[in-house]
């Protein structure tokens, strides 16, 4: 026992004697004014933009970020509780631009925008720090988007396919399933070689707790990081949250990996930036947002990209979420973000209440990457689907005249009704792309035409079960990723065999 005690004492003595006190010169300033999360500091003539400053208060050290560099003072936003700071307190410049810890150990954890753990699972060991603000990769370093992100949601994978490196906006009123789409996408990334980052900006902490539980149940936390800036966090942390999340994603991008990042939601982010800007006395513009609110989102979303092989070949796919008020797509922030992203998924309340969930409006939703982000098999079966779905919606008004229409229109209506039935999907039930191909193949080749509309869902569920039992075809699709003769014959046989077992077909 004494050897251990002696050993410890000897180690301690060695540590202390080997300790060299470092005296270095620091820039200091004094707090002139502090209020509402903003501090005005005098001195600090050499402060840098977005530099981390430390306030030395009685309750310990509090960090802040310099955002306004004026002639005789520096405007600082406080990342933490500002009530402990008093006028006259000393402020030290750390010479570090705002950065967050990044690394493999972030996966599976719930952290705040400064990288501190929020899930009570202990300290996170990291060695690397990435800057929160970064200039997006240039044109030369990028490659075109070719690989798909399988969301597992039928409506999206068929009509509005998303590719790795694309930015696709999810936009709609409150309570229409925007977050549900995002979460289903994360759950479907299992086994797809994709890391995920979910940034919750201004969300209710109870909602995020539910999300984390669901993700853990689905095994998604094995490849997901949750960055949480809840509704009660100060505006300064809400402001840096998406950038911090993007920095954590960029760690994996630099290693050549694919990352999916979800910003939920950017409307609250714009509101927090408006709050900070107004408190820093920057002049307000339209709807009281500051003049650079476009730049706020464009610099964030431009960091989502696909890099070419020389630079690692990694990608970041961004799914920003915007909440509109009363379906107004032409408001300030929605129009800004629509013009930045490569397409949008528009959710409509009418469709939602009619029972079409996910409530995706096929006409207004678009993906500017389109079919280059689909596997060949899906491209073949879903090629004209978006157009057909939009046309059906226009024709649906005539559905009440059922018997008065020509056979061509009637056929379109019947097909459209079944299409919309197939698009209906339950939450937390993402579907692998092979099964989607089976269902769509059956639909577009008329193999579902004699299934009554109200039993299409039942038919579909049964078809998937049947396909699982005889999974040779599914495996073939996943392997070949295209519809050649072999696959088509297999599909025809599978669906034909299944239909024999079903007893409610229309004669």
């Amino acid at each position: 026992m004494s050897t251990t005690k002696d050993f410890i004492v000897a180690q301690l003595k060695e540590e202390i004697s080997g300790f060299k006190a470092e005296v270095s010169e620091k820039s200091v300033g004094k707090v002139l004014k502090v209020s509402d999360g903003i501090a005005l500091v005098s001195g600090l003539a050499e402060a840098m933009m977005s530099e981390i400053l430390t306030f030395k208060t009685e309750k310990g050290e509090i960090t802040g970020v310099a955002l306004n560099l004026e002639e005789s003072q520096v405007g600082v936003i406080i990342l933490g509780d500002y009530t402990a700071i008093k006028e006259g307190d000393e402020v030290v410049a750390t010479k570090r631009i705002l950065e967050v810890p990044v690394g493999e150990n972030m996966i599976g954890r719930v952290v705040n925008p400064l990288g501190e753990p929020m899930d009570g699972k202990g300290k996170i060991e990291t060695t690397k720090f990435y800057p929160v603000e970064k200039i997006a990769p240039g044109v030369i370093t990028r490659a075109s988007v070719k690989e798909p992100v399988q969301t597992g949601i039928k409506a999206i994978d068929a009509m509005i396919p998303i590719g790795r490196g694309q930015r696709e906006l999810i936009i709609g009123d409150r309570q229409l399933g925007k977050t549900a789409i995002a979460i289903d996408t994360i759950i479907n990334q299992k086994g797809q070689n994709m890391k995920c980052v979910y940034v919750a900006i201004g969300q209710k902490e109870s909602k995020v707790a539910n999300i984390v539980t669901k993700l853990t149940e689905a095994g998604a936390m094995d490849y997901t990081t949750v960055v949480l800036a809840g509704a009660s966090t100060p505006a300064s942390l809400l402001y840096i949250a998406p950038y911090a999340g993007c920095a954590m994603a960029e760690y994996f991008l630099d290693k050549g990996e694919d990352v999916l990042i979800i910003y939920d939601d950017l409307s609250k982010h714009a509101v927090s930036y408006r709050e900070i800007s107004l408190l820093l006395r920057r002049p307000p513009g339209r709807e009281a947002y500051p003049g650079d609110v476009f730049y706020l989102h464009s610099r964030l979303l431009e960091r989502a990209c696909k890099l070419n092989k020389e630079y690692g070949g990694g990608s970041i796919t961004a799914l920003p979420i915007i909440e509109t008020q009363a379906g107004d797509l032409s408001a300030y922030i929605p129009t800004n973000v629509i013009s930045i992203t490569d397409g949008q998924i528009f959710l409509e309340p009418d469709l939602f209440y009619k029972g079409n969930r996910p409530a995706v409006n096929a006409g207004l939703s678009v993906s500017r990457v389109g079919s280059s982000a689909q596997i060949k098999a899906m491209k073949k079966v879903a090629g004209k689907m978006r157009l057909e779905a939009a046309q059906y919606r226009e024709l649906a008004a005539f559905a009440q005249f059922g018997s008065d229409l020509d056979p061509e229109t009637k056929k379109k209506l019947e097909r459209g009704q079944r299409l919309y039935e197939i698009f209906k999907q339950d939450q937390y039930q993402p579907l692998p792309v092979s099964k989607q191909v089976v269902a769509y193949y059956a639909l577009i080749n008329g193999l579902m035409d004699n299934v009554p509309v109200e039993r299409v869902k039942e038919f579909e569920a049964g078809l998937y079960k049947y396909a699982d039992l005889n999974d040779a075809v599914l495996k073939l699709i996943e392997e070949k990723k295209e519809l050649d003769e072999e696959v088509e014959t297999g599909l025809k046989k599978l669906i034909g065999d299944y239909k024999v077992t079903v007893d409610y077909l229309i004669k």
Partner: protein
Amino acid sequence: MKISVSQYAAALFDLVADKSEKEVTAIIKSFVSVLDKNHDFNKTEAIITSFNEIWNKANSEVDATLSSARELSATTRETVTNYLKHKTGAKKIILETEINPKIIGGFVLRYGSKVLDGSLRNSLNSLKNKISN
């Protein structure tokens, strides 16, 4: 028209440059009456600070404060003054010393908006942080 603190200080500096003591007293009197007329007496403190800064910059002087736990010898003060002259390139260093037992040992040197913390209190704090991590 609103006149800022820095404008007042700059004006005062220009007025008293190269003037004798008697002239300076007269100038200060009229300066104060101008302050009174513009109802800007509350800015006096700030004007004095700003004036000091402008004076130091123009005459290449640096104000510095040296805090120590015990009285420091003249040679030590001389070394610090020379170090500051070398560091800032100023022609004259106005060194104020103060005794602050709270720093336990060593010294804390403040000049401009910089601090050089060579106190024992600081070393002990860093040691504490290093060991506890």
